[in-house]
């Protein structure tokens, strides 16, 4: 490389960083903005739910650079390591490049797209004709684009007349959805990330955001650094890297935090720190069945004294009192949580109880105060939640059982009345339980299309579900070989987000468009094209007409269809036309009812939320109401303040299984590691799964750092090296779940008991036995599956 070109690139890089940080830079350098890049294409990061804005630099049809989007309201130009290194996934030699069909000898053979799609369509037709309309299921992902998820959902529910539609957000966000709907009447938060910078107290629970949402954590950290008086409380069984910046850590045994939240509410009310005016005006106190008065709520809470709760949870009583005081008196308290609350047998209740704390203190509806659920995947909100791609929902996150809404969707889709089944399909765990081969009469689901997710590694209590996937007709769309492709009959090579474009909607109700930057590798195709081609072959071309080869045009058609169906809901994105999304540098937050509306930073507040003026809501909102919860099912404009009895996890440690096991993510790795384990600098940092143990436990079990340890539950076992750390409570072990090596796939051990309301399984709590197996061993690290013909072993 000659010196001048090198200097040129360096100047460009520095100018871009300066612009992102708002630091002035010599104009001459700024003028060189496009050095060595032919064009910059706007998009979002492919990984977590933060929704960081990026620009992908393209030269000669290839991605050669990436930079944070300084105008993005999510990340202001900063990206974490995963965002920067996405190109290594795009161009990795293991990318699937041709359709593959399993042959009689068990090996895959490359085929043409026509052959593969004909096979899939014919087999789906055959299974539906022989076993009924619910015989083929769709299992999608919070990593598909909104257009893709909407299209598959429409094909299944409007075309097949089947609600056997699920997605992996059932495993991560369903409790948050159920929590918002039961408390607020409508899914997704009131506020936005911008509340971080206005907050005076931040209550982080069930989220290790420093690892899982690094850019949001950075915003929290910088806010705290600038404003040392801001109080940070972390309520979490482990002293995570997030807990390290906390002013107060509320440790507790996994699955016991419902009692901690009730105890905080008890202290707030006992110390007269509650906001009676807000409670009276904006809430209805309810057991879920009966409405009760405040005195009864107070009496119910009185059993949760900090001392009693300390005994139950191991959370120090004085910490509970301090946390309650800070929560109620800071002036602007923001709660944030993620899987730690959701992946629980009582995940919905845990969500309700955090909302309760905001209701009793009135800490909502103003800058810096909100009850905000973080989402794990880039498009769990925008895709699966908002398009209603779960077995009980329709677009607009409304129930299939709602006659009026079903009729509306049928009309909008131009299909005969009665096409959509009013009965919900199976939730994810039931769907996989009922999946099996044609010979198995117990299994009504005979075929499944899995897109952009890896259930053969990610389902809890995995042993129970592998056979069903193996025996059924399984079609998998993905970019790499995975544990799930090992069980597939047909593998369809998918395009990466920058190879197809599409909309992602992040945790703060913000939809952002990624434009197609480069062509897909090999013969990989967008999921949207695959969905439309299957639809066409099955006779549903009229329903899904966007089957052309121009991916951005097809995206636009699907998006327009979607925003038309949801036009008059509180989720409206009617003003977010594709043309507008292309132009907007930071995307748009719904509700956005018209093209001249800027989008909504805060819901339910007059002057900020356009639904106050929208014909769908206007008439029943009192003209003097400044805050009004118009989505309330009882049409009283109120929130539900719930009396939820204490309920612990599905299983507690006992004589045989003496430890709590909890699982989670680490900053560098993403989900099952199929992408991040292929990025060398990421893989190196966490090349294998390990078990974190407290030094007291390790001593008692005779385990030293690096020893191989067996973790056994009632369902299965794993073997992996030990890490000894004071960052976890004695009696609580932690394992990250990204490792694909069979012996270390911790989901064989995890519990698949589901929340009776949200149907989300309890990944976060299992009772296990732990034994030392041997001294340190060289484990097969950075383990990936690069051979599609490798068996599931």
């Amino acid at each position: 490389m000659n010196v001048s070109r090198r200097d040129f690139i360096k100047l460009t890089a520095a100018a871009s960083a300066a612009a992102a940080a708002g630091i002035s830079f010599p104009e001459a350098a700024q003028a060189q903005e496009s050095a060595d890049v032919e064009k910059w294409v706007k998009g979002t990061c492919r990984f977590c739910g933060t929704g960081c804005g990026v620009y992908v630099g393209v030269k000669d049809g290839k991605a050669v650079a990436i930079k944070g989007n300084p105008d993005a309201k999510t990340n202001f130009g900063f990206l974490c390591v995963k965002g920067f290194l996405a190109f290594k996934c795009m161009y990795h030699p293991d990318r699937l490049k041709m359709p593959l069909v399993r042959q009689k000898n068990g090996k895959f053979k490359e085929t043409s797209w026509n052959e593969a799609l004909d096979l899939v369509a014919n087999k789906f037709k055959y299974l539906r004709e022989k076993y009924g309309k619910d015989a083929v299921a769709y299992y999608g992902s919070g990593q598909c684009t909104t257009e893709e998820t909407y299209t598959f959902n429409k094909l299944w529910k409007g075309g097949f007349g089947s609600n056997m539609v699920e997605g992996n957000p059932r495993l991560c966000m369903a409790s948050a959805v159920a929590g918002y709907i039961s408390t607020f009447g409508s899914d997704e938060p009131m506020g936005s990330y911008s509340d971080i910078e206005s907050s005076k107290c931040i209550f982080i629970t069930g989220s290790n955001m420093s690892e899982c949402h690094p850019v949001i954590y950075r915003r929290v950290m910088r806010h705290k650094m600038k404003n040392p008086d801001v109080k940070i409380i972390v309520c979490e069984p482990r002293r995570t890297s997030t807990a390290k910046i906390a002013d107060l850590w509320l440790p507790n045994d996994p699955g016991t935090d419902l009692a901690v939240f009730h105890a905080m509410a008890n202290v707030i009310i006992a110390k007269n720190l509650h906001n009676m005016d807000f409670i009276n005006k904006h809430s209805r106190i309810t057991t879920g069945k009966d409405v009760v008065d405040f005195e009864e709520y107070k009496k119910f809470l009185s059993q949760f004294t900090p001392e009693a709760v300390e005994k139950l949870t191991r959370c120090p009583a004085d910490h509970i009192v301090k946390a309650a005081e800070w929560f109620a008196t800071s002036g602007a308290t923001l709660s944030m949580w993620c899987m730690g609350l959701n992946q629980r047998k009582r995940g919905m209740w845990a969500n309700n109880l955090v909302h309760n704390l905001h209701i009793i203190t009135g800490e909502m509806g103003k800058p810096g105060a909100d009850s905000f659920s973080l989402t794990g995947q880039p498009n769990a909100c925008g895709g699966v939640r908002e398009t209603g791609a779960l077995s009980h929902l329709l677009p607009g996150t409304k129930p299939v059982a709602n006659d009026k809404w079903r009729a509306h969707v049928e009309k909008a889709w131009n299909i005969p009345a009665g096409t959509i089944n009013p009965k919900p399909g199976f939730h994810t765990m039931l769907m996989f339980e009922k999946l099996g081969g044609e010979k198995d009469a117990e299994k009504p689901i005979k075929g499944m299309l899995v897109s952009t997710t890896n259930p053969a590694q990610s389902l809890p209590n995995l042993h129970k579900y592998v056979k069903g996937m193996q025996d059924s007709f399984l079609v998998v769309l993905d970019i790499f070989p995975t544990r799930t492709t090992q069980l597939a009959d047909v593998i369809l090579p998918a395009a990466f987000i920058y190879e197809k474009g599409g909309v992602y909607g992040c945790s703060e109700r913000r939809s952002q468009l990624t434009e197609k930057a480069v062509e897909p590798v090999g013969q990989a195709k967008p999921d949207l094209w695959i969905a439309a081609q299957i639809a066409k072959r099955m006779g549903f071309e009229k329903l899904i007409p966007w089957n052309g080869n121009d991916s951005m045009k097809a995206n636009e058609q699907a998006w327009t269809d979607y925003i038309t169906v949801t036009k008059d809901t509180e989720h409206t994105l009617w003003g977010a036309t594709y043309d507008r999304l292309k132009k907007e540098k930071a995307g748009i937050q719904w509700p956005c009812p018209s093209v001249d509306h800027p989008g909504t930073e805060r819901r339910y507040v007059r002057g900020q939320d356009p639904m106050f003026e929208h014909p769908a809501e206007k008439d029943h909102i009192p003209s003097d109401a400044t805050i009004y919860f118009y989505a309330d099912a009882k049409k009283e404009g109120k929130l539900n303040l719930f009396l939820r009895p204490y309920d612990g996890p599905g299983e507690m440690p006992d004589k045989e299984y003496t430890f709590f096991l909890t699982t989670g993510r680490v900053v560098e790795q993403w989900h099952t590691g199929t992408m991040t384990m292929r990025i060398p600098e990421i893989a190196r940092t966490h090349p294998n799964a390990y078990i974190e143990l407290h030094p007291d436990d390790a001593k008692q079990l005779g385990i030293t750092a690096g020893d191989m340890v067996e973790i056994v539950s009632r369902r299965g076992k794993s073997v992996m090296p030990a890490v000894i750390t004071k960052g976890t409570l004695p009696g609580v072990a932690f394992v990250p779940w990204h490792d694909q090596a069979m012996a270390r796939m911790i989901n064989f051990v995890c519990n698949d008991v589901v929340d009776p309301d949200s149907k989300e399984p309890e990944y976060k709590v299992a009772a296990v036995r732990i034994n030392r197996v041997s001294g340190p061993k060289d484990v097969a690290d950075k383990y990936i599956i690069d051979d599609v013909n490798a068996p599931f072993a």
Partner: protein
Amino acid sequence: MIFTGSIISFEAGQSAEALKLLEKFPEIEVHTFSEDGNNAVVSIETNDSKALENITDKLKKADGIKDIAHHYMYFGEETEKLLTEDAASTELGAFFKSARIKNGKAL
């Protein structure tokens, strides 16, 4: 080669010491500063992303440096290497040595 455009934030009052430290890294070029002098705009040039990772780690741990944030990354040559599966790519070379499944067996 990898090039980044990055912001290095100094602990208050420690920018002079931090700048001395930065001089020890030939890969780093300081272009300008924020008005308060607490942030430096730099470009970093390394042979590969592993070297970048090492520098980032060292700086994060160094006294006087509060944070380093990358905003821009140019990786055109890395893309070429990946597309040609260039055996000389040290990173990929090292990567391929790791244990993987081949023909159904872990190596």
